[in-house]
Each structure stands twice: as structure tokens, then as C-alpha cells.
């Protein structure tokens, strides 16, 4: 489809762009960030997030409209794909960004260090980042893929360093840039090798051209593949490309950490699936794929997968800062997700999609609680969480639900996600991988339980003398938390619609 015709299928992305531009212009005109402090400024401050949310809702509406009844097709001269697979991920990104915006709304008139949410650029960058994620999940061309990766990365660098004057935030931003630059440099070298070998940048054409070429260049192709894995592995924070992750997660404003732990990871998986399943393998049956061009990428990923989950979990055991702990836990979760990638079966991919949806809610939820508690007690250290569960029972219980869901205990949604992953692994008869996976879940219990132990296992109040130092949690936060916890509870008991949606979304060009 040519460029002009494509535009009417590009409405979700265009909505994001328009919203971003509008906010930027409004910001320039009214200068929100420089308003005087008193409470009268609150109305205007809330205008920005509300505007952004409106943009996201409109974009979601366009996505939903595209979803019913269309033929999968290429847009913009085969640069990006319009298919159910991409739309599935776009919906995920919109939900994530929506929650992040809602986390960021400043709730007090006194500007604290989370004043990031006061500045128009913050929302603009989030929207641009979302736009990049949209393109990443739909890219069917090496160039588009690289451009999208960079769009996401650059806006993430700035967002990470958004807390001006905060050393940790700046340091995290710088680290992120350096690691990111190296990784994307390596990746684009790999991409150029692939182009050199095949003479095309299009996912669909590369395998055909590769097959017709000579086989003597196999080592070069393998090297190129590994370079691409470096670039994308960095995006999903897979070991050994994860070094940036804990520092960046710790230093970034917490809503951004939550964003980074879910959205780019999901996009990374989208592009990994699309790239490796179309370029280096072909669909040989209704639910199975076979390798082409003899690149043993499933084996490479299996090794990375085992390293990622094991190292992520083992490192998380020693963390005392909650954000760092959750950073390592998110590395481990990337490892679990990768199990679905190596199997070359439809069930494996469906499991990834299901897991991503569930992971979104539980991981955002856990970060949300960290935000709430750190605004209430001013700390993200586990030892300061002592007895917190009794001082804020509802939030404490909800945190337990998120953490046990992350561990993968029934009847919570996290179990369903893991269940489908392990089911796919067992079906494909990768028994050793399944065993490594479940043992890792057991390890993960230990550090998640540490948080729960701190919150609940001490400081039990007496019935006769109710603890007076109750934390007051703004009702707005409670509502948000309940929005996040409901899916975790409901999907743990009834997930048939989610399964059907994920299975139907497994259709990519």
C-alpha cells in the first residue's frame, strides 16, 4: 500500500503525534512548569495529564476500530505491518502509558521530587516513546525497526534523567545512553551485514534472497544474527546485556521505571518474535515454525534465557532497594518470557502474549505500591517497610497479591501466565528448560517473600490498642491500585477470553 493510502490505517499513531504537538504548544504558550506554587496551579497541572489521557483513549478507540474486520496488510511501502499481532501490542502500550500517566499526576500542591509530572515535556516524551513502541511492534523492515528502537531509546534516556538536580537520575540517564549507544551501534552493524548478504531490508524478502545466495557466508550471517540479538537483548534487558537495568531503574523517576519495566520489554518481544519468526524461520504447519538458513537462534536464545532468569533471580536475592529488586525481578521475567520464544510453536508465542498482559498488571501494580509507599514514608528500602502492611492494610494486602502473582502462585493471574509458558515448553519437550524455569520460580519466592515479611510479619498491632500511626493513602491511589489488582484476581480464575484474544492475535505478516 502506498503512503497516501496508508494514512487512514495509521490513525492511532497520528493521534499520538497530534496530542504530543498540542501539549508541546500549550506548554510553550502557558509555561506550566514555571507557575507559582500555590494550590491554584493544580487545575492547570492536571490539564496536561488529562489531555494526554484523552489522546491515548482516542488512539485506543482507533485501534479497537481497526481490530474488527480487516485484511492484514503492509503500510507505507512495506515499512510497517497492519496485523492483529501489532494491534495486540499497541493496545498493551496504550494501557501501560495510560497507567503511567495516571501514576504521574501530582497529588499534592507542594511540588516534591516527583514534580516531573508537572512539565509538558514529560508527557510529550512519553507520547513519543509510545509512538516508537507502536512502530517497533509493527516494523517489517530493518530500517524501520532500527528507527523505532532509537525513537523509544532516546525518549527513554531523557525520561530517565528527568529529575534535574538529582544525581542518581542523571547518572542513570548517562549510563543508559552509553549502554544504549553501544548496543544499537552493534545492532545496526548486524543489520547492515544482513542487508549486505541479502540485498534487501524487508523482512519478507530477506529469507528468499538469503536462500538463493551461496551458503559460504553462513558464519557472517551467524555473526549478524548475534549482533541483532545484542541490540534487542539490550531492549528486553536479557543477560548479559542487562547491566544498565538496575542502575537505570533505581535512578529513574519511579513511574518511568515502571514504564521501562513493561513497555519496551513488551515491544522488544514483539520485534524479536516478528524478526526471528519471519526472517530466520518459516511457518511449516498450522502452529509450528521451522528454521531456515541454518542459524541456530533458538539454541542461542535458550542459553540466554537460562542465564537471564537464573542471574536475575539470584541477584534479586541480595537487593535491599525495592526498585533494584524489582529491576532484577523484571530481568528474571524476561527470562521466563524467552522460554516461549525458543519453542517455534504457536503455543509458545501465545503464552508470551498472555504473560505480557498479566505481567503488565502485576508489575505496574508492584511499582505503583512502591510509589505510594515512597511518597508516604520517603524510602524505597526494604528495612523501612517493616510493619507497613499493618499501617496501611489495604495497600499491603494488594502488594502481597502482586508479589505472589509475580511468584506465580495460584489462584492469581501470574500463575496462569507461567502455566501457559511451562505448558508450551513441556509440549515442545524442552524438559530441562522447564525444570530450570520452575526452580527459578521457587528462588523468586524467597525475595518476593522478603518484602512481604517486612510488611506483615512484624509489627502486628494489638486488638486492644489499635496502631495509631496509620498511613493515609490518597483515595485516588487506592482506586488506581484496585484497577490494577482486579485483572490479577479475575484473570487468575477465569482467563478464557484473554487466551482467545491472544491466540487470535497470533497472526503476523
Amino acid at each position, binding site marked *: 500500500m502506498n503512503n497516501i493510502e496508508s494514512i487512514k490505517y495509521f490513525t492511532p499513531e497520528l493521534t499520538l503525534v497530534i496530542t504530543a504537538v498540542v501539549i508541546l504548544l500549550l506548554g510553550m504558550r502557558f509555561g506550566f512548569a514555571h507557575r507559582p506554587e500555590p494550590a491554584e496551579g493544580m487545575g492547570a497541572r492536571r490539564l496536561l495529564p488529562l489531555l494526554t489521557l484523552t489522546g491515548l483513549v482516542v488512539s485506543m478507540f482507533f485501534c479497537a476500530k481497526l481490530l474488527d474486520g480487516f485484511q492484514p496488510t503492509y503500510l507505507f511501502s512495506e515499512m510497517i505491518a497492519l496485523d492483529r499481532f501489532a494491534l495486540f501490542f499497541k493496545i498493551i502500550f496504550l494501557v501501560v502509558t495510560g497507567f503511567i500517566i495516571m501514576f504521574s499526576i501530582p497529588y499534592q500542591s507542594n511540588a516534591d521530587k516527583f514534580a516531573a509530572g508537572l512539565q509538558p515535556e514529560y508527557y510529550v516524551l512519553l507520547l513519543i516513546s509510545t509512538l516508537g513502541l507502536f512502530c517497533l511492534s509493527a516494523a517489517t523492515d530493518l530500517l524501520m525497526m532500527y528507527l523505532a528502537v532509537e525513537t523509544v531509546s532516546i525518549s527513554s534516556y531523557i525520561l530517565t534523567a528527568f529529575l534535574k538536580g538529582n544525581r542518581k537520575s542523571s547518572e542513570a540517564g548517562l549510563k543508559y545512553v552509553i549502554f544504549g549507544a553501544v548496543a544499537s551501534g552493534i545492532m545496526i552493524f548486524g543489520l547492515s551485514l544482513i542487508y549486505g548478504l541479502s540485498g534487501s531490508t524487508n523482512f519478507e524478502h530477506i529469507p528468499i534472497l538469503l536462500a538463493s545466495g551461496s551458503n559460504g557466508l553462513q558464519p557472517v550471517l551467524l555473526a549478524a544474527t548475534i549482533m541483532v540479538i545484542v541490540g534487542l537483548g539490550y531492549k528486553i534487558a536479557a543477560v548479559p546485556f542487562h547491566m544498565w537495568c538496575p542502575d537505570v531503574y533505581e535512578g529513574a523517576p519511579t513511574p518511568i521505571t515502571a514504564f521501562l519495566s513493561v513497555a519496551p520489554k513488551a515491544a522488544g518481544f514483539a520485534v524479536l518474535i516478528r524478526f526471528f519468526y519471519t526472517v530466520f524461520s518459516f511457518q511449516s504447519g498450522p502452529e509450528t515454525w521451522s528454521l531456515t538458513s541454518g542459524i541456530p537462534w533458538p539454541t542461542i536464545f535458550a542459553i540466554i534465557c537460562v542465564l537471564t532468569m537464573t542471574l536475575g533471580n539470584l541477584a534479586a536475592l541480595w537487593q535491599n532497594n525495592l526498585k533494584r529488586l524489582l529491576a532484577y525481578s523484571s530481568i528474571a521475567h524476561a527470562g521466563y518470557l524467552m522460554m516461549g520464544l525458543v519453542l517455534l510453536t504457536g503455543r509458545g508465542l501465545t503464552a508470551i502474549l498472555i504473560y505480557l498482559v498479566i505481567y503488565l498488571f502485576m508489575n505496574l501494580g508492584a511499582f505503583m505500591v512502591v510509589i505510594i509507599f515512597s511518597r508516604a514514608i520517603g524510602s524505597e528500602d526494604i528495612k523501612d517497610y517493616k510493619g507497613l502492611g499493618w499501617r496501611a492494610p489495604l495497600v499491603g494486602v494488594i502488594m502481597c497479591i502482586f508479589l505472589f502473582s509475580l511468584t506465580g502462585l495460584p489462584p492469581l493471574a501470574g500463575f496462569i501466565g507461567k502455566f501457559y509458558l511451562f505448558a508450551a515448553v513441556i509440549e515442545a519437550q524442552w524438559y530441562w528448560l522447564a525444570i530450570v524455569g520452575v526452580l527459578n520460580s*521457587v528462588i523468586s519466592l524467597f525475595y518476593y517473600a522478603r518484602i512481604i515479611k517486612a510488611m506483615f510479619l512484624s509489627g502486628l498491632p494489638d486488638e486492644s490498642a489499635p496502631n495509631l500511626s496509620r498511613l493515609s493513602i490518597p483515595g485516588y491511589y487506592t482506586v488506581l491500585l484496585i484497577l490494577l489488582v482486579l485483572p490479577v484476581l479475575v484473570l487468575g480464575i477465569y482467563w478464557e477470553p484473554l487466551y482467545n484474544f491472544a491466540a487470535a492475535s497470533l497472526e503476523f505478516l
Partner: protein
Amino acid sequence: MPHLLTYLIFLPVMAIPFILLLPSRLSGTATRMAALIFTGLQLLLAGYLFFIFDRQTAAFQFVEQAKWIPTFNIEYYLGIDGISILMVLLTPLISFLAVIASWGITKGVKGYFCLFLLLDTGMMGVFCALDFFLFYVFWEVTLLPMYFLIGIWGGPRKEYAAIKFFLYTLFGSVLMLLVILALYFTSNPHTFNITKLIELRNTFTGTGWLVAFIGLYIAFAVKIPAFPFHTWLPDAHTEAPTPISVILAGILLKMGVYGILRICLPILPEAARTFAIYMAIIGVINIVYGALCTMAQKDMKRLIAYSSISHMGFCLLGIAALTQSGMNGAVLQMFNHGCISGMLFLIAGVIYDRAHHRDINGFGGLAARMPLYAGMTTLAVFASMGLPGLSGFIGEFLVFLGAFEPYPTATIIAVSGVVLTAGYFLWMFRRMFLGPLNPKYENLPDINTREMITLVPLGLIVIALGVYPMPVINLINVSLEHLITLVK
């Protein structure tokens, strides 16, 4: 009455909304009453079940079957037979008594009873589920409340004990999950339905399934707990509050034995026949090693905990025999041990509430000061030793009878366990109740009415079954006979 089992399972959690809605001013007593009423209703239902249960058939009764997740062929499938009926009866009884025993809990009452009731539901679910997925969900549902109940309301080392319990059990159960999935993908058409898997039992043969059997066995052995996975038990028991110890010893440990009977043996019979001899050996190690460890204990609760390990060994030995009387003995032993160890932990709780320690050597001559208490202790201790005329004897005797033919040597060694049991319990009894009275405890009040209410029903069962065990054997006999034909 339709959906009898569903009510039986979910009655306890139905109390939770009431408890959460209680105003905090009323919460203490009202919470306890709500828990008492709902577990009481559950007990009544169970009593009704006892009378209408058909003793003549090995088929599943009170079956409920509904589609849950059709795309993965997961069902909500409940039913009970002779293997589960005893535990389905015991669970509400022990839970009800444990609620009474929990009356003294004053901190975080709402949370305590919510978790307690959730635990009750999980346990009932395990014994009623006939869909393997559902079974696994209930199995795991028992973990969370137990972790908190030990971890929040436990003794000084509660945090260590709670996480140790959690990690051990989770380690076992994730292995079970893998085997469940392997069974699912091997069966054709794919199913989690336990009755269908049993029909397909002869397709699960070969070394691969022996490994799978061992995976399942480990999952259940951790719960029993069988050597060498037993080390969590003494810690968990020692630190848990009294009512939770009662639940733990009375029901939770039985889930392991039940799992072997319900799943390991009928679904993987070939592997079971190969592995039986090792199971017998592990059983004997449990009996003798457990008893020797018990000898060395100074803490009363720890002593009872180790004696549990020893007594659960009889269940393993009886199952490994794969004979009618061995199986009958094992299932009876499950039930009896539930009653007896429940009594013993309640008894330990009584003295702990008064003296605030459980050091056996710190007491002496209590029989003169607390005659009623001494009497109840005597009953429980004698029952645990397997004195003829009390229920412990019947179970152990049947186990020996069944196991002697296939494993004469192992059985002879195991019999020494009975002597050792007599040794450590009588020694404990002497140190605590006989001899000169420790002057510190001159004014210790005797056991009170509430404590008697928790002990007497169990005591009556122990005596009644010791004299005339047929009502219980009738319940289980036919199903176990059928189980043996499945395995042979």
C-alpha cells in the same frame, strides 16, 4: 442436596466477606463467632455426608462436573470416594476444633480468621478435586494462608519457619506442575481429568514416567514429610500457634499421603510397582529415624512434631505394601494420626498457655496439680503408642499385617518404632507429670472447659475406633480394593 461438595469446600470462605465488613469495634468476638458458625455448618454438612455416603461402591460419589476453561480442557470436577471420605470428614472436624482453640488469639483477629478460613477451603478442595489442574490450584491455595499464619502469629523464630515451609512445599509442587503438564500433553485427547488419566494408566510406561513418578512423589513427600524432605516440619510445628499446629499435623500432612493414593498409584501404576520398595525403605527410615530424633527432643512441641514424622512413616510403609490390609492400615493411620496428633498439639498448647514455655525438663509432678489434664495426656499418649483398645493400634497393626508379606525385613525393623514411641512418650510423661512438683507451677490451673471441648471429641473418636473400627473401615474398604486392582 445438589452441589454438596461445593458447599463443603466454599462454606468457610463465605464467612470472609462478613468478617471483613464487621466494624472494628465488634471485630474480636464477632469474628470468632462467624468463623465458628461457618466451620460448624461445614461440620454439619460433613456429618450428613457420613450418613448418606454409599459404602458399597468404589465409584466417585457426589460428582460435580462443569467446564471451566474449555480451550485447555480444564474442568471444575469434584467427587469423593473411599480414599478421600475420611479426610473430607476429618477436615471440618479439625478445623472446627481449631477455631475453638483459636479463641485465645487476640492480635489481628480478622486477618487470622480470614486466612484460617481460606486454608480450610484449600484443604477441602484438595480432597474433593478430581481435575488435576483444580487439584493443583487448591494445593497451592493452602500455602499462602499457612505462610502467614505461621509467620505472623508464630513463635520467636516464626519468620524462618514460615519461609522454610513455603520454599520446601513450593519446590515440591512446581515439580508436580511439570508432571501434570506432561500427563496432559501425553494423554489423547489432552485432559486434566483424573478419572480419564486413570483409564489411560497403561499408556504411561517407561523410564520417562518413572522420572515423572519420582517428581510427583517428591511433591507429596515434602508434605508427608518423608525423609529426607522432613526438616521443615519440626520448625514449622514449633513456631506455629497451637491451632495451626493442629491443622498442620491433622490435615496438611495427610495431603501428601492422599496425593500418593489418589494420583501416583492409579495413574502411574507401573512406576509405582517399581518404586514401591524404595517407598517402603523410606517409610522405615521415617519410622525409626523419626523416633530416634524424637527421643532427643526437649521441647514438647518439637517432640510431637518428630513423632509425627515417625508415625507418617507407617502410612508410607502401608502404601508401599500394595496389599489390602496395608492400604487400609495406611488410610486408617492417616485418620487416626490426624486425631491423635491433633490432641497432642492441643495438649502442648494448654501447658504453653499456662507456663509460657514447653521445655519438658522444666516441669514435673503436674499430675497432682492438673489431674484432668494428665488424664487427657495419658489418653493421647497411649493412643499414639498404639495401645490396643485405642485407635492408633488398629492402623499400625493393619500396616504391619499388610507389609509383612512383601517386605518382612523392613516390617520387623519398623516394629521397633512402636517400642521407641512408647519409650519417648512415657519418658516425656514421666518428666512432665510424675516426680516432685516444680514449685514454680504450684498454682497452675487445670485444663478449662474450652480446652476440654476441643479435646473430648477427638478423645471419643480415638476410643470408639479403638474398640470398633468397622464403621471407618467400611467407608474405605471397597475403594482401596479397587485401587489395588488398578495398580496390580
